[in-house]
């Protein structure tokens, strides 16, 4: 029993690391650009399907296939960005439109709804064969290496002039324009980078799980938000950007551990989406209720007892 739980934990951390890449992408739109980007469900599957077909049909090198899949995600993000900024479609709707369109695109790419990847060479089984490590350890290793590189690059990028302009656009568009920033461009750029990371995660996940599926992106945005919020609730709203990004990844791992635990406890996998939705709803409302309680506790009618109002 204990061993099976530990095994499940190990798998959960590996999955959490790979899904954490997606959560970092969502962090860029949700927290930095202040856009709830629903492209994610489509671009996650796009990454998985593109990578899957390149591996299974063309027999491309796994690393190259993963990178091309990420670029497909960049393009998907740019489409949402153009719909939003050039056609003035509200961001949420622009994301939904791209996501819907991507479903057909993904079916076209894959040519069917599911592509097994068990017999092809992937990033993971390549390393398993080369090192002889267990697959669960390899997925943790790959995830951690990719995440360290990504967090370092994102930390650098959002400190540059260009990255600062994206942050300013998300914080105050009016200010950004009046200081000479082409806010449309920076929104498109942010959405493109974000969805590139999401597709990268999708490509790695499909290699890890051994199949690419046009439905693999359903609910991805909610899982990403869950990771961000769990990270913030547990680690607080820290100031250092690298710490914030790490908290998102840890949130992703903790989410996977929670999932592994409830599945071990006998939750039906069919109910997983409902569980995730409920978890995010609870996590989003916790800060609000805590604030209300704090407010109520500190209220005094007369301001007596040394309390200053």
């Amino acid at each position: 029993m204990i061993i099976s739980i530990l095994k499940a934990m190990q798998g959960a951390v590996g999955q959490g690391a790979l899904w954490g890449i997606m959560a970092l992408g969502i962090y860029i739109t949700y927290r930095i650009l202040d856009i709830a980007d629903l492209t994610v469900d489509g671009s996650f599957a796009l990454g998985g399907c593109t990578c899957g077909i390149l591996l299974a049909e063309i027999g491309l090198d796994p690393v190259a296939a993963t990178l091309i899949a990420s670029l497909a995600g960049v393009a998907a993000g740019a489409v949402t960005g153009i719909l939003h900024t050039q056609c003035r479609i509200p961001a949420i709707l622009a994301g939904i439109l791209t996501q819907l369109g991507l479903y057909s695109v993904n079916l076209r790419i894959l040519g069917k709804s599911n592509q097994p990847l068990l017999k092809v060479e992937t990033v993971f089984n390549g390393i398993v064969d080369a090192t002889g490590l267990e697959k669960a350890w390899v997925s943790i290793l790959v995830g951690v290496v990719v995440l360290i590189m990504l967090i370092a690059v994102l930390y650098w990028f959002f400190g540059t002039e260009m990255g600062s302009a994206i942050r300013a656009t998300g914080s105050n568009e009016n200010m950004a324009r009046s200081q000479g920033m082409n806010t449309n461009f920076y929104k498109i750029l942010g959405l493109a980078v974000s969805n590139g990371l999401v597709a990268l995660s999708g490509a790695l996940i499909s290699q890890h799980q051994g199949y690419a599926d046009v439905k693999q992106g359903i609910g991805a945005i909610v899982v990403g938000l869950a990771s961000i919020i769990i990270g913030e609730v547990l680690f607080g709203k820290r100031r250092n950007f690298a710490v914030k990004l790490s908290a998102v990844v840890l949130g992703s791992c903790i989410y996977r551990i929670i999932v592994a635990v409830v599945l071990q406890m006998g939750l039906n996998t069919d109910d997983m989406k409902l569980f995730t939705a409920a978890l995010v709803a609870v996590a989003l409302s916790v800060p609000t209720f805590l604030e209300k309680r704090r407010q109520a506790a500190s209220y005094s009618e007369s301001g007596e007892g040394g309390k200053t109002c």
Partner: protein
Amino acid sequence: MLKISHVSKTFNRGTINERRALTDIHFEMDKGDFVTVIGGNGAGKSTLLNMIAGVYPIDCGTIFLDGVDISRKPEYKRAALLGRVFQDPMLGTAADMQIDENLALAARRGRSRGLSWGVTKKEREEYREKLAQLGLGLEDRMTVKVGLLSGGQRQALTLLMAALREPKLLLLDEHTAALDPKTAAKVLELTEEIVEGGGLTAMMVTHNMRDAIHIGNRLIMMHEGRIIYDVRGEEKKGLTVADLLEKFEQASGGTLDNDRMLLA
């Protein structure tokens, strides 16, 4: 420096809410002019500034700034030539970013933004000195998020940011209106220091007639989308509030209605 010819703007054209905001505006400013703008509700004061800044497209006419035709340039491109401070202190700064980061964003106005650092060490020293000149103690809080500052502090910072790259024209849209009287006076004092000290060309919309008379070298009064009175130099300095009210009645055939106008 600024040359506006035949500029008109109608909002919601062809609908029941159609509103003529500017009617055939002709206006020129010389380098170093500091023009104050007054007028009643809906006179077109803010619209005039927004048209120069490119917030909305103009219906007709041309705007030249420093010899450049900016009539149809997008807002972010015109920003290279302009400095702007808004009525709402929240609008001019990025609340989620630090004081030094905000200044660094302004320092790159009109330049291409690449992959070098957003704020350099050398810049920080420069900002520290500039902030010290504001006399608000912000030089010791450079890494604080701007959202934690008061309205007056944010407005002073916005002013500093607007003047950082020596704009061809500084646009101040009732930038002290949302502040308490003491803070407003302080920000106004800073405004004069920055404009006169830097030899800048500026337009300032105000609802305070006394400020409009005492500050700057030229005053224009607007009514229903037109400039109805334009006075400069010694004649302007000699004006009183009563004179302005009289001028307004003469030119418009009615009494001045601005629910925020301070007559005192």
